[in-house]
């Protein structure tokens, strides 16, 4: 049934990716935008693992790629949050639409 169909997992991953896209485009807080990026990375990871589970030749490779994505996402989150904290120290706000130094 539905738990044994590739389409179900891929549609779930697609909807989660769209949610992450919306959050990245719409939120004002820089940390919210980073959390939305994490959601998008997780959606892609779900799609990779789903392909690995349903295509027999891809199983091990998909798992390795998913582990790599998790590691790179951890590095991305670390650097991204450090940048947000560094900007916050200068500008005293986490809201991205108030970073308008290039406007003047």
């Amino acid at each position: 049934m539905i738990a044994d169909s590739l389409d179900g997992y891929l549609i779930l991953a697609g909807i989660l990716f769209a949610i992450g896209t919306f959050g990245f485009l719409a939120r004002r807080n820089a940390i919210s935008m980073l959390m939305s990026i994490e959601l998008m990375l997780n959606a892609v990871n779900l799609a990779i693992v789903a392909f690995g589970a349903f295509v027999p030749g891809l199983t091990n490779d998909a798992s390795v790629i998913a582990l790599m994505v998790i590691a790179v996402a951890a590095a991305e989150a670390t650097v991204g949050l450090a940048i947000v904290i560094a900007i916050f120290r200068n500008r005293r706000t986490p809201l991205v639409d108030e970073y308008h130094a290039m406007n003047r």
Partner: protein
Amino acid sequence: MRYLVLTGLLIGALLTLPLLVVALIVAGEPLFGISGWQWRDFLFALFGVILLVAGLAVVTMRDIIRCGLAMIVCFAALAGLYVLLGAPLIAATQVLVYIGAISVLVLFAIMLTQTKAAPTRLVFQSQAPAAAVAAVILAFVIGIVVVGTAWGDVSAVVSTATDTLAGVLFTDYLLPFEVVSVLLLVAVIGSVYLAKRDEESGG
């Protein structure tokens, strides 16, 4: 406070659910006698709904701390889906890295950047309606592509054996593995340098 307690209870329940999933999959029982519906279908629906509701909560909630807690729930539901897909090592890594490390990092960053001076009156930018339209269109396009593609013979879940995966990881993928470890080291050093206070500017 009440919501935080409820969220904590939900997280605790979700963290124990993967064990339940394993037990039920091994048992392979049909669900309540409904023909064709196994326990794994019910669990797929449960985890999918939790995943999408928590994901929506992450992007729409007003209080950013609650967004972070909803993100933990979202990651836990994803770990359950990985177990359903026969990848227990990925599920364990998801719990360790995402719930254990990245969520804590995000929550610390939220605590460091919250100010009383910056009111949370507006959560969304002015482009939010256009972003919502674009996201819905994106979801529909992905859904159409997924349903319209013939994926070939994909009918059964193939489990990943952890020992085979370890063999592949340390033979075929040894170079990417080492590159990723160097990347993590670079990221740690770089973020420490970025987040460090400058002594000379007194910032």
